């Protein structure tokens, strides 16, 4: 059970595939249009329940509870060997191969 007042992220389908705009590429037209938003849980609930939250601007939103205390997951990414090659190219172009 997740306590009332917990900061969570919910997801809601705003438009089913058939309600979506015309003039969409077929791969987009066949999937529903969804929204994610964060806020404080108004009543205790379980993960994946349909819940109401209060957002940071004070709006009330309804949706499926997808994430509790949502973290930021973006980072500087994995090791990319090509960046080292890129650096070598630039330094060699500027200062020559034997630059120490």
């Amino acid at each position, binding site marked *: 059970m997740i306590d009332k007042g917990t900061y969570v992220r919910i997801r809601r389908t705003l438009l089913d595939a058939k309600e979506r705009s015309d003039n969409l590429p077929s791969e987009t037209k066949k999937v*529903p249009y969804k929204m994610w938003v964060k806020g404080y849980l108004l009543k205790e609930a379980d993960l994946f329940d349909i819940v109401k939250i209060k957002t*940071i*601007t004070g709006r009330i939103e309804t949706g499926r509870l997808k994430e509790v205390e949502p973290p930021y997951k*973006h980072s500087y990414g*994995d090791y990319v060997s090509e960046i080292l090659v890129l650096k070598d190219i630039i330094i060699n172009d500027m200062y020559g191969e034997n630059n120490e």
Partner: protein
Amino acid sequence: MNNTYQAVMNRRNEIMKKSVGIDYTKYEQTGIGFDYELMMNSQGYNINKIKQIQSENMVGNTPLVELKNITKYARKYTKKGYGARIFLKDEAANISGSFKARRAALAIDKAKELGFKGVIAATSGNYGAAVAALAAKAGLRCIIVQETFDSKNICQPEISEKARKCEAFGAEVIQLSVGPELFYTFLKLLEETNYFNASLYSPYGIMGIETLGHEIAEEVMGKAGKYPEAVIITNAGGGNLTGTARGLKNAGAINTKIIGASVNLYGLHMASDIDFNKKSFTTGHTGFGIPFATFPDRSDVPRSAARPLRYMDRYVMVNQGSVFFMTQALALLEGMERGPAGNTSLAAAFSLAQEMREDEIIVVQETEYTGAGKHIQPQLSFAKRNKVKIMFGNPLDEIPGKNIIFPKNGSYLKYEEISMDNLRKSYLKKYKNIKLSKEDYKFLSEELRVDISTIKDII
């Protein structure tokens, strides 16, 4: 209230009128046109007032730096006497880390003046951070609406970072899946909250950038005793180019060439759920640059104040690999870690400068902050995870969505020209079967900067 897609879209004009504080019908002419200058001049701002508002908000007066090492690098590939001096306006120094703060400063000033309690902006990019930061400073509430995820819930890392930054400034961030229905959600929110629409395309959103052109003209005059021969501007929605060009002209730099530059994303569909995460640039690319140039009024206001074809002398594009290459060069050779998207015009300038004489000056008019998610490292890492191949070779062989090709050395970094004639043709396509009046032709002539007989020939 009926909130189906069609019902909300049908209410768009009344929602817009209430939320932007502008009655656009006042500027409409009888035919296809409207009075652009009247619209721009009727909002109660002039350059001095804008400068004052911005300086009170830690916006503007950013450093203009000469990129001596990058200039030297470009000159390795020119004949003697060639290779223009490359200057860079370090717009990352603005509050919130990009030139977008200039646009947001005015929108927020207007929202405050009109007594709105909050602001909403539809943007996945730096503009959201700018609106959020300035709203925070002004004590206004703020909602940012972003196109964020594909249908597998995979998010562009750069957009995740922007959401984090907006939240740091206290904004509510609403994240949506891929699709133009973002506009539907945006309208519904405006209706629900009665907040101000801090549109990128309102007169405020464009006039805020005029100070950037103004500063460039004055600073280059101060340093070199003349106006720059060219200013190169990363082009997406057209506002950056329009505002900068207007500011340059206002300051007297009427002969400075205005060059637009975009990342080449030909072949990727902007509303495609599959293509969404195959691209490494979420702005500054042809997927926005070309449609917004050829049909500016596709924006979120009835009449866009961003009208790049009124000002653009040339339009060039570079590939994704070249922008990453120059982003790395800027860090390695000049000690400036910025971008990458904001470095699109820098990549193009590296190549364009080689065609200019060494006593000429080309100004790259922006940088943007970088960080987790935005930096080239996570961008390339994300591309690889999405099966985009990273290669070295001739960047002109790059196929957006399939590969990213870095120049195998600096000599391979070349811009490609986009035909202005083709852009004009594309703009005029919608008038092919319409009977146009004399006034209509006059409007089109101003829009496209060609004489009426040329317009008639094209149509």
